[in-house]
């Protein structure tokens, strides 16, 4: 039980149904103290529902929600030691910035001087010093976001739940806020549970990423392992860009794709087994026509800033390639892929 003591939140076999539709299917997940965990997935994957179950806004159809070892599945939100930063912030429009942040403290009957001190500290923390008297409608999206975070953090929750908090901000502001949130989390030592559909955001901020799809967890891991070793084609496709090809495992450590065979490092799939082959666009090397493992023709070239994105036709397959050197459209190139950059996966079941 020593390991489990570190678990602040433990979801055990949590399922949720809405009107006969299975939104969450047997979710098992634990969150450690001071961890920055991100639930990542496309819309409708159940990530927000998971968050709302922990926040107390939904009750699971079955399963346990353990908080410090106690089942809180049916505890109302106001009795939980978690706070939520809502999508679109949900600031109280009838209160000013100060009163929004002080809302939770006033309920706890904290003395006024104490409230003012804490609110001012929070305003400093989120870089909104002097904004206390402002009306929340008079703030920009980024400022409202900061107020929402301050309003939650001032209650000193053990876990802060964030539901796509940066979704409404523009790209530049979003990047700044990502870094700010991360450093805030590290400074305060609070556990963050973050929900997003933005894979880049997840990779930037998280200690642990939970990739979800159709109410099921696809993979749990740190950003690097999720990116480098996706467990299935869905994760590979969702995190970063990927070429996902149908192939056949000829034998251990040899895979056939579109008539070409490649040595790889995977084994244990059996002989002549159908598999999904995942190759990252940046892992494909373009070489001279005569030295490639296969030969292809450049179909299109797009300039993407840091790199060029080229679509290459090679026999029956088309590959997406990222490279910093540009090959002219129509030219023939050799293609090399080193064995450990080829990821073999069991073929994915079709989506429901």
């Amino acid at each position, binding site marked *: 039980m020593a390991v489990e003591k570190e678990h602040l939140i433990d979801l055990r076999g949590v399922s949720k149904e809405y009107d006969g539709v299975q939104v969450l299917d047997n979710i098992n997940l634990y969150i450690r103290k001071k961890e920055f965990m991100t639930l990542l997935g496309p819309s409708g994957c159940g990530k927000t529902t998971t968050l709302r179950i922990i926040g107390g806004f939904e009750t699971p159809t079955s399963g346990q929600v353990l908080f410090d070892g106690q089942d809180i599945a049916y505890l109302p939100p106001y009795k939980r030691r978690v706070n939520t930063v809502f*999508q679109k912030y949900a600031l109280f429009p009838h209160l000013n910035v100060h009163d929004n942040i002080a*809302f939770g403290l006033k309920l706890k009957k904290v003395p006024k001087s104490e409230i003012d001190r804490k609110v001012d500290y929070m305003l400093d923390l989120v870089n909104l010093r002097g904004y206390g008297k402002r009306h929340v409608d008079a703030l920009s999206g980024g400022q409202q976001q900061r107020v929402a975070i301050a309003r939650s953090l001032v209650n000193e929750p053990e876990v802060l739940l964030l539901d796509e908090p940066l979704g409404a901000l523009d790209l530049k502001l979003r990047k700044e806020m990502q870094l700010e949130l991360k450093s805030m989390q590290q400074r305060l030592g609070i556990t963050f549970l973050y929900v997003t559909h933005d894979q880049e955001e997840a990779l930037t901020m998280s200690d642990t990423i939970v990739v979800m799809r159709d109410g099921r967890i696809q993979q749990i891991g740190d950003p690097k392992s999720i990116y480098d070793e996706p467990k299935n084609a869905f994760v590979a496709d969702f995190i970063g860009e990927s070429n996902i090809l149908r192939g056949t495992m000829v034998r251990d450590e040899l895979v056939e794709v579109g008539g070409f065979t490649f040595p790889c490092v995977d084994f244990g799939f059996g002989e002549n087994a159908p598999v999904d082959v995942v190759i990252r666009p940046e892992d494909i090397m373009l070489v001279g026509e005569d030295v490639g493992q296969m030969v292809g023709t450049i179909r299109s070239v797009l300039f993407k800033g840091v790199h060029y994105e080229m679509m290459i036709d090679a026999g029956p397959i088309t590959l997406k390639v990222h490279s910093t050197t540009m090959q002219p459209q129509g030219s023939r190139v050799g293609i090399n892929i080193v064995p450990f950059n080829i990821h073999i996966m069991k073929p994915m079941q079709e989506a429901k």
Partner: protein
Amino acid sequence: MISSVALPWWAMVCMGAGLAAFIAMLVISIKRNHGVKRSLFASPYALWMIIFTVLPVILISYYAFTDSNGAFTLDNFKNFWDSHYEANKVIAAEAERLGVDYSQYIVRGTVNVDTLVYSLWMAFQCTVICLLLGYPAALFMADRKMKLGSTLVVLFIIPMWMNFLLRTIAWMSLLEDSGLINSFLRWLGFDSVQLMYTSGTVLLGMVYNFLPFMVFPIYTVLNKMDYRLSEAAADLGCNSWQTLYKVTMPLSIPGVISGITMVFMPSVTTFFIPRILGGSYTMMFGDLIESKFLTEGNWNAGSALSLIMMLLILVSLSILRKADPNGEGGGIA
């Protein structure tokens, strides 16, 4: 048979005038190279307003400040304050002629003022009851977890499809001496109860008729309120009651104000409900105005009373407007 569905002459005149005004403004604005302005499309309505709102108000003001011969007078307002004013004037003249002290014979008639106060009091009670009944109903209807909510909305609307007079008269057949309730009581062996022709009955009829006007503005505001706000309140430590009075209620004030306006105004001016359910035992200000015009044929006095009521409504509207400066309730305040 086209002729049988022909509109009354005055509607034809209005529509004709509206159309003429519309075409005239269209021609003018096109000639001046302004193109078609959007405000132009309001011209038929503007004309309608002028004929049926602005002109009548001017006429009523004219009548209110003149006597039956058309001469300027404030007697109509003095009559409001003292309904015996005319009679007292006659007595005074007669007494002077006879050279006697008449002052002991003068009685001030307070019936008009009393009626106004009574109307305001009834309307106030009606508004308070509607608010107490309507707010929880609206809360229930707007609760997104309540599947019954939308059914209730329909149930509130259905009676409004029926004619307002019919609905009020229907109460009679329930409440009158030979009505359903008393028949039932007699069948049980009790004495029948006087249910009709009391202030309470009138109040019942008013609440019954005006309740939807309280419920719907509040419902609209609550319904469009972001449910995450109450979730945020719960998240920050509010139990259901605290959420209600710290977040939901303050944010629904525009709807409440709109509801109060839409119940209070027609309540003060109503004359049909007390006529049907209150009989001759209750008289409200609306009845008084109606009787001045139709029974006494005294348009001048009736107009003065109408003006006083309009003034009252304007004052209460401006007070309510202060409480909801943005008009978020979507009401007429």
